[in-house]
């Protein structure tokens, strides 16, 4: 096996890891704060992908404008998911919450199929391939990675530099204490859901420039996102980034050494072993 090919796969792994990390952080943020897992998270990403696709192909919007609109749309969708689905069941047993957000998943998949059929739709962007040290890298992937990093940095500064962001971090540590200090939990939840939605929208933008979208797109990236979040430690942001890189490298390098299917088998085995060895997450601490 050619060393350059392996290096190329490793770099592609990092590039994929950036987008996976963005997905995992959004899901993790909502879970850490609202304490509910949005099973349909990656299906919101799918909605974002369709938004870009239709705005560009049917309405002729320029891609950057369509991207901004998609992020805003899915952020609003995040707000609506919280208001209409999550807030009535905040105090319900976890299984009811899983069923409700799981129901949303089937709703979104079925509705997308109804509206747009199961056709795979691609933007067919003619983005170049860049050659670096003999490696051939897709410009779309480099672009997606760059914006994923920017999105994560934006989240980081929001969470550390603003009061509402600091309150969001505080809620994930002790929701009762922060409410007693005068923070309106409803507002904190709404802001978190909108940001989580916006991150799903951004992920959608970064994925539609690389992949074609179809109603079951969530099934492609959903399981791996949940695995990353659990492996990194539920609610642990840094752990999610590390787990994203581990998983994307396994998938990318395994994909060229054996096959993509085999790479996923190995990734899942690593996941199963890791939750036996470190059930609190690879970077988690036992409280």
């Amino acid at each position: 096996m050619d060393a350059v090919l392996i290096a190329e796969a490793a770099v592609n792994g990092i590039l994929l890891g950036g987008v996976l990390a963005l997905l995992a952080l959004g899901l993790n943020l909502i879970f850490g704060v609202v304490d509910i897992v949005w099973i349909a998270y990656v299906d919101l990403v799918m909605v974002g992908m369709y938004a870009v696709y239709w705005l560009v192909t049917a309405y002729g919007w320029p891609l950057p404008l369509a991207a901004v609109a998609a992020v805003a749309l899915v952020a609003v969708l995040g707000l609506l998911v919280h208001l209409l689905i999550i807030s009535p069941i905040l105090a319900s047993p976890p299984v009811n919450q899983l069923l409700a957000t799981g129901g949303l998943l089937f709703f979104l998949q079925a509705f997308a199929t109804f509206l747009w059929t199961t056709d795979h739709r691609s933007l067919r962007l003619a983005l170049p391939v860049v050659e670096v040290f003999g490696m051939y890298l897709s410009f779309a992937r480099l672009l997606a990675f760059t914006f994923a990093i920017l999105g994560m940095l934006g989240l980081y500064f929001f969470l550390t530099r603003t009061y509402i962001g600091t309150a969001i971090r505080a809620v994930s540590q002790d929701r009762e204490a922060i409410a007693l200090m005068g923070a309106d939990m409803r507002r904190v939840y709404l802001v978190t859901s909108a940001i989580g939605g916006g991150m799903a929208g951004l992920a959608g933008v970064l994925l539609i420039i690389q992949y074609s979208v179809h109603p079951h797109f969530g099934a492609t990236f959903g399981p791996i996102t949940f695995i990353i979040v659990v492996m990194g430690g539920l609610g642990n942001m840094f752990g999610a980034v590390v787990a994203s890189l581990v998983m994307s490298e396994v998938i990318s390098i395994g994909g060229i050494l054996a096959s993509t299917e085999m790479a996923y088998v190995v990734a899942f085995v690593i996941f199963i072993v890791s939750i036996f060895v470190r059930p609190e997450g690879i970077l988690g601490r036992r409280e």
Partner: protein
Amino acid sequence: MLSLQNVSKTFGGFRALLRVSLEVREGEFLGLIGPNGSGKTTLFNCVSGVFPPSEGSVRLRGEAIDGLTPDVICHRGIARTFQIPRPFRKLSILENVALAAHFGHPTRESDAQARARARDVLRLIGLPADPEARPGLLGAAGLKKLELARALATGPALLLADEPLGGLDPEEMRQTADTLRRIRDEMGVTVVWVEHIMATLMRLVDRVVVLDHGEKIAEGSPRAVAEDLRVIEAYLGEKIALE
């Protein structure tokens, strides 16, 4: 200032509070005592909005506050501390207090104002540690002080202090008790103080209310309560010397 009328709280079949009525006067330093499980913390929870009372009313300066959410009650001027300190361990000490300063005020302050007030409160409380450090570096006494600082930073008119002396050594107890007294005397905050360390509490408070099995069994000056036979039987076990 704070008025509880026939407040009851039940959890399933367990009656944690039973028709408790009590008045806290403006500027008062009130001690709330009773054996473990007598309902002291439940009473704090009902007043601060952690959960609503099952029955009865809670009024602050004449306005009903029972059933309001904790953030609204905080904005009306009630702050509380936890018996077991609950700092945000991943935030700095200053961030912990600045959050309270920012969110505790209905008209939000600018970042600089909130931080400045957080620093003032830390100075008043006498927390010597580096404000940029994590709370994990603080000992038991420091964490208790941080609880007080967070509560005070919300700018309360009424402070509910849940066992601020628990787990401290005698010198730390003296300091913290002195801080509580200054909060009342110098800042004009009305204080309701739950404590098990009788000798210290009895020396400082204006008045004492005694709970037992969720019911109020006595109320009055520290001296009168210390000599009350029901209180002695339920709680004190023996008379305590006040001087």
